[in-house]
Every structure is written in structure tokens, then in C-alpha cells.
């Protein structure tokens, strides 16, 4: 009898706790939808970004690892096989006729083939890839330095952001709004470790990991490192582009500066 009573009491406690947290959660849930709460939480995001930028100099490098540290299985997340018809055609052809286009606020817009990109100065780095979900993988990346590309096309003085337009569609609306895109600031664009990778772990970059080109921005989270980069554009402001927050995930509420 006392056993049954104890169970009852426990059940009562559990129900009480669940009800209390439901009430609290309901409150927070409602709060999450209030504009002033969103604005307050966003002010925290601004403080976080400014602090990180203050702590990072152009010389601050992400840690580089050794061959022995490479992940045996590097997880491919997000899009792993774009079905864009133009992309599929290029993939079938090994991207032999494909060209990366660089434009926007530059003096000399340029289209470059993979062979031309491979002929430019390259950098190889073994770095840790941190997904916003929480996991990490270590991979070896070889690619052309983004800074070298922009020295070639000569950035105009009013350019402040570099936008990456991609071939893959990640959303589920079935419209252009699903297309992946990303953007970074000039400090990251000209950073030593910021490259457009065409090789991963010593092999041609696989489609699952973003062939023909994937951006590497090693001091930020994985979603900044756009795969299937087709076109690069220098802009003064992110306002007029898509959702205006500077990226596919950013438009869905994720931080633009993904250093944490």
C-alpha cells in the first residue's frame, strides 16, 4: 500500500513538474515571438560578433592538424548531390567546360576554368570542420586563396562583402529562395586560410563535399563554407540580396558571423 502511495506521489510530482515547465515554456515560447525579445536577443548577437572580431587579427590562424588526425569518415551535410540540370551536366563532364565567375564591385570581372584556378598559387591545410549541430571532422583541403583571386580582379573601394552563389537548392519551397548562398566580410576574404578548395584529402573534391569548389573559412562554423560555388560577387551591402541577412541559414535565423 505504501508502495502504491509512493508511486502516486512520484506520478503527482512528475505531472506537477511537467505542468510547471510547460507553463514556463509557454511563456518563453510566447516571448520568442515578441519583436522586442527578438531585438534584445539580436543585440546579444551583435555584441558576440563585435567581441569575436576584436579578438581576431588577420594573423590569427585556426589550428592546423597533421595527417594522422584526419577523420576516417568526413560527414557530408546539407546538400550532397545537387539536381540543378546545368550542374548535373557539368558534373557528368568532370567540370571540364565549367567556369567560376567573379563579378560585382571589381575592376576586372573574370571567368576562370578549374585548370586556370589550379594554375594559381594554392594553399593546403588540415583543419577542423565544426558543424553548427555540434560535431567536428578533420579534413585536408587544397585550393586557391580567395585573397589572390581578388587581387587579380581588383576589388573596388566600396566593396565590403563577398557573396557566394551556389548550385544547390536546400530549402523545400521549390523556388529560387531554396538556393544556397553565403557571404563573408573582407577580413575573412583576405585571411590566409580562406581558400576555394578543389581538392579534399589529396583527391579531387567529391560531389558530396561541394565539387567543383568549396569555400573554406576556417574560423567560422560549417554552414559558412558554401559548397558548389558557381559565382562570386563583391557587394557594398547585403540588404538587397535575398532575405538580406547574408546567407541561406542566416535568412532562417542563424548568425551571420558564425564564430561560435
Amino acid at each position, binding site marked *: 500500500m505504501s508502495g502504491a502511495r509512493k508511486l502516486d506521489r512520484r506520478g503527482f510530482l512528475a505531472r506537477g513538474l*511537467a505542468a510547471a*515547465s*510547460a507553463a514556463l*515554456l509557454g511563456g*518563453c*515560447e510566447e516571448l*520568442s515571438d515578441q519583436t522586442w525579445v527578438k531585438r*534584445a*536577443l*539580436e543585440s*546579444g*548577437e551583435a*555584441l*558576440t560578433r563585435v567581441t*569575436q572580431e576584436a*579578438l*581576431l587579427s588577420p594573423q*590569427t*590562424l*585556426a*589550428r592546423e*592538424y597533421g595527417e594522422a*588526425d584526419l*577523420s576516417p*569518415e568526413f*560527414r557530408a551535410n546539407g546538400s550532397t548531390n545537387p539536381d540543378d540540370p546545368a550542374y548535373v551536366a557539368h558534373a557528368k563532364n568532370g567540370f571540364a567546360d565549367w567556369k567560376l565567375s567573379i563579378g560585382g564591385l571589381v575592376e576586372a570581372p573574370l571567368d576562370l576554368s578549374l585548370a586556370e584556378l589550379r594554375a594559381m598559387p594554392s594553399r593546403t591545410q588540415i583543419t*577542423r570542420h*565544426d*558543424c*553548427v*549541430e*555540434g*560535431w*567536428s*571532422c*578533420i579534413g585536408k583541403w587544397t585550393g586557391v586563396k580567395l585573397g589572390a583571386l581578388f587581387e587579380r580582379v581588383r576589388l573596388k573601394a566600396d566593396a565590403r562583402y563577398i557573396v557566394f552563389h551556389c548550385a544547390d537548392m536546400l530549402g523545400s519551397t521549390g523556388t529560387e529562395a531554396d538556393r544556397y548562398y553565403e557571404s563573408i566580410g573582407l577580413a575573412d576574404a583576405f585571411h590566409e586560410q580562406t581558400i576555394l578548395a578543389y581538392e579534399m584529402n589529396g583527391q579531387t573534391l567529391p560531389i558530396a563535399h561541394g565539387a567543383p569548389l568549396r569555400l573554406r573559412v*576556417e*574560423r*567560422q*562554423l560549417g554552414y559558412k563554407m558554401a559548397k558548389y560555388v558557381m559565382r562570386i560577387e563583391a557587394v557594398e551591402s547585403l540588404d538587397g540580396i535575398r532575405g538580406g541577412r547574408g546567407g541561406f*541559414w542566416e535568412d*532562417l*535565423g*542563424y*548568425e551571420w558571423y558564425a*564564430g*561560435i
Partner: protein
Amino acid sequence: MEAEETNPKRKGEVIYRHSATVRMTHWVNALVLLVLLMSGLQIFNAHPALYLGDKSDFANPILAMGTVEEGERLTGVTTIFGFAIPTHGVLGLSGDAESGYDERGFPWWSTLPGDRDLAMGRRWHFFFAWLFLLNGLAYLLWSLASGHLRRDLTPSRNELKHIGASILEHARPKFPKGDEAKRYNVLQKLAYLAVALVLLPLMLLTGLAMSPAMDAAFPVLLDMFGGRQSARTIHFISATGIVLFVVVHLVMVLISGVWNNLRSMITGRYVIEPAEGKS
């Protein structure tokens, strides 16, 4: 812990137990830790598995929450060091037949927001992490400057010598009266010190060690904890430690005079029952 006065109605001595700084930072911390815990579980749910080292060994997590097929139906399972523990209905898979099952690490009622929403969970988490930092700094600086840390929280050599007796004393809850009740006992001192100087700072440091930007700025963060995935695991274990502390803390508050305790943490005033044989 001064300003003694007698309260004839309660037949006890009233002391001023907690300073305004301790009271304020205590309640701010309570709220901030609750939001950090619940938004943290939301973030954890995005990849409900823990690893050691720099990278994730997906095949061998040290802890993972997920589902397994049992005949026709899915059941929730938590695996720790390879041992599968059935946690159906709470961890790995929650909900019920009526409202539908949901494959997720921690259940909706423990996360902020309740629905799966990593972006919003991160916003709550980082905003409250700033409040946690400012509140914690205010408490620590004040505690150092005012002598609170040394006077009220640091155990004496004598107390540490008799820690065994103190543990035995607490095996059967009997709370001190008279002068002894004006001070924290040695177990209280050690518990509060462990939380304030070890677990809470550890939360902050392991949190920063998960940031690729902070790792670049301060690579020592990675070396301190043995890699980013270890830091994430320690973050989880340390949070668990804080939850356990809060559970014990709440039980002690309840059984040692809940209204007296609550009042002392709100107004500062605490009634001391006179010791037997005295008064």
C-alpha cells in the same frame, strides 16, 4: 552575517545572513542557468551524441541518444560507453501514442524553445551566456573584495580535518542551532566553492572552446580540454553536475526551513533557533 537583533515573537535571534550582492546575483544566476540549461538541451538535440578528442568518431560516441527498432516499433535508447539503456518516452524518443512520437534527444518540455529550433536555441543561449558572464564576474569580484570568499566560504584547516564527522552528521539531516547556524558548515562551503569556482567557470571555458573563432584566438582552450569534442563532453558533464547540485540544494532548502531560507535569500534576514540549554 552581522547586525544581530532579537525577535521576541519568534523566540529566535534574527541575523542578517546574505548581503544584497549575494541575494541579487543568486537569483539572476538561478534564472540565467535555467535558460542556459534548457536552450543548451535544444542545442544538444541538434546532434545528441558526445565524443572525446578533436573530432567526432561517429561510430563510437561515448554517449548517444537515439532510437532502435524493436519488432514493429521504434523505441528510445541512450547508449553510454556502448551500454544501451532504455529511455523510451524521455530520451531518444518522447511523446505518446495520442499526440505522436518525436525522435529527439531531450523531450520538448526540457528544451527552449520546445519545438526543434536550433537557431532560436542558440540565440537564447548566447544572450544568456553574456548575462551569466557579467553576473558571475560581479559576484566573484565582490566576493574577493568584500572578504565573502575568505570569511564565509573558505573552510578552516580544522573544519577540513573533521570533514568525516561532518559527512556522518549529514547522513541523518539534523541542522545546527545557535551560533553554529550562523556559519556555513564545511560541506556547504566546499559545495558552494566547487560550483562557484570550478563548475560555473568550467561551463564558460568549455563553451568558448567549442567556438572555432575563440579556438583560433586562444588555442590553449583546445589543449586545456583535450580537443573541441572533449570540451563539448565536459560542458555536458559539468552542466549535469550543476543540475545535481541544484537538486541537492533545493532538497536542503526544503528540509532545513524553507520559509526561513527563502526569506534570507530575499530580504537577507534569517532566524536562528537558540541552541539547547541556552536562552
